[in-house]
């Protein structure tokens, strides 16, 4: 169980993480979502004692990361796929971590094989592809067999097969009762993996809960094609519908397809397409994080 309480980080005048209070529960995969610059990585780094919070606390079963007796046995973290010395082999990278993780050296080869890096164990990390670095980063997180995993953009750089493998593995780890938190800036990346999501926008949690609930809260979008777009736009304005541009015409949010069809027929507007889209989850995500650009 990871508990964030009022976690806040300011860099000068910029508030990167703003009063975050969240519980991340064991036995589930939690997706930590938000656009780039929303504060995901800063939050994870604060939880891991790498960045000092301006205010608030992050605790694992009541202890801060620095208070953990053998941190790598309690929390496995992979932050980015660049934290390796390029001249060190994959196996040697893990061997440097084995003593403080208090695991036998044999465990290093074991986790490398588990993440599919057995054949590359004696190669220098400088020769690794981004996908192999992602796997090595995961291997470091798993080295201490920890009950909690914090993974920042874990599928970054993985090929489709690797992504499918990562999903299965994260599900399996959560099924064993572990706390699994994965961050991503793409909802589609965690959609098939996460049970819960925390959506971050400008450092604030704008949604915390299950994916199912988020999906049903999403606004309905209906795509409309018409040979007379100006007439349809006037109709939408008169009825107060929200209209957005769409490659096939307009995306209308608010009314049902039946309401749109009836109103168009009443106004004598011909429609060529009237389709309710099932991308309501993505829509909800975009609505929650709307207008947030990257922090520069």
């Amino acid at each position, binding site marked *: 169980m990871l508990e964030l309480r009022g976690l806040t980080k300011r860099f000068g005048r910029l508030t990167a993480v703003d009063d975050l209070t969240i519980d991340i529960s064991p036995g589930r995969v939690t997706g930590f979502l938000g656009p780039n610059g929303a504060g995901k990585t800063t939050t994870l780094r604060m939880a891991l004692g790498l*960045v000092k919070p301006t205010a608030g606390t992050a605790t694992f079963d009541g202890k801060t990361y620095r208070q953990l007796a053998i941190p790598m046995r309690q929390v496995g973290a992979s932050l980015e796929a660049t*934290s390796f*010395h390029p001249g060190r082999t994959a196996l*040697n990278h893990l061997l440097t971590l084995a003593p403080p*993780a208090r695991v036998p050296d044999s465990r290093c080869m074991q986790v490398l094989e588990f993440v599919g890096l057995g054949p590359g164990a004696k190669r220098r990390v400088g020769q690794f592809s981004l996908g192999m670095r992602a796997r090595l980063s995961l291997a470091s997180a798993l080295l201490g067999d920890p009950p909690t995993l914090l993974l920042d953009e874990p599928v970054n750089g993985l090929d489709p097969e690797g992504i499918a493998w990562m999903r299965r593995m994260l599900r399996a780890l959560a099924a064993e009762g572990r706390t699994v938190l994965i961050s991503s800036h793409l909802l589609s990346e965690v959609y098939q993996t996460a049970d819960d999501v925390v959506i971050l926008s400008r450092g604030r949690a704008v949604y915390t809960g299950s994916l199912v609930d988020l999906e049903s809260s999403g606004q309905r979008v209906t795509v409309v094609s018409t040979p007379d777009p100006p007439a349809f736009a006037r109709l939408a304005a008169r009825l107060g519908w929200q209209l957005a541009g769409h490659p096939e015409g307009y995306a209308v949010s608010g009314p049902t397809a039946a309401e749109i069809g009836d109103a168009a027929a009443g106004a004598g507007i011909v429609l060529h397409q009237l389709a309710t889209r099932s991308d309501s989850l993505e829509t909800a995500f975009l609505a929650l994080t709307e207008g947030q650009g990257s922090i520069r």
Partner: protein
Amino acid sequence: MIPAIASENRKFFSTRIWWILLLCMVAYVAFVVALIAVVIHFAEGVGAPQGTIGTPYSLPASMAYVFPATIGALAITSEYRHQTLTPTFLATPRRGIVLGAKLIGAVPIGLVLGVMASLTALAVGGGTLGLLGDDTSLGLASSWRDLVLGALAMAMWTLIGLSFGALVRSQVAAIVILLVFSQVVEPILRMVPMGVPAMSHVVKFLPGAAGEALAGGGQVYGVGSVEGVVGLPAWGGALTMAAYVAVFAVVGYVVSMRRDVT
């Protein structure tokens, strides 16, 4: 602390830079010692009384200390450069322990470097003097003392480099400063007492002068060459070097190591 030291030890030996720098150091010491042995031969040939020129055995700590200093600095600046501080601090979140483990772990490494340098000075220096038919001075206790304390001085330089790296963080900046200071700045400062004798009381505390004092050197840039001015005793040199390590390490910990790792 012991697991953290084991981790540092593995980090050191799992990249190639240590033996590249070790080979460079041995080659450089061999070159300098052979050169000075030849100079001693010809100086005595033109009438300098035997023994007044000195011996080549204390030379590593005078001329080659930049190698252990660089190896020490790399032990911490490469972590900043390759962002490996993140896994390091995840494994050992208490940063004072990380710095302590690096310093303790560097002691045996520095001693090995020092012993290699002294063995090279012994073999090449003694060998060259012997081949030229000169007195190798190996009958003198002071030659052996220089070799042993010279190895200690090189170990101290490893620690100075490491703690300096902890303060500076940037690998390029640390190495450039070490090179410029050791090869240009300190040699110039060491000449100041020739004009202003009173300055020798300051100059003898420069790190290179302290290292030479420990190793029994001093004939190269000459703190002791000004009339009536004595350099530090060996123990004073050792304490001065230890003070540099302590100041750099404490300031480095407070100013650099406690920063956010982003």
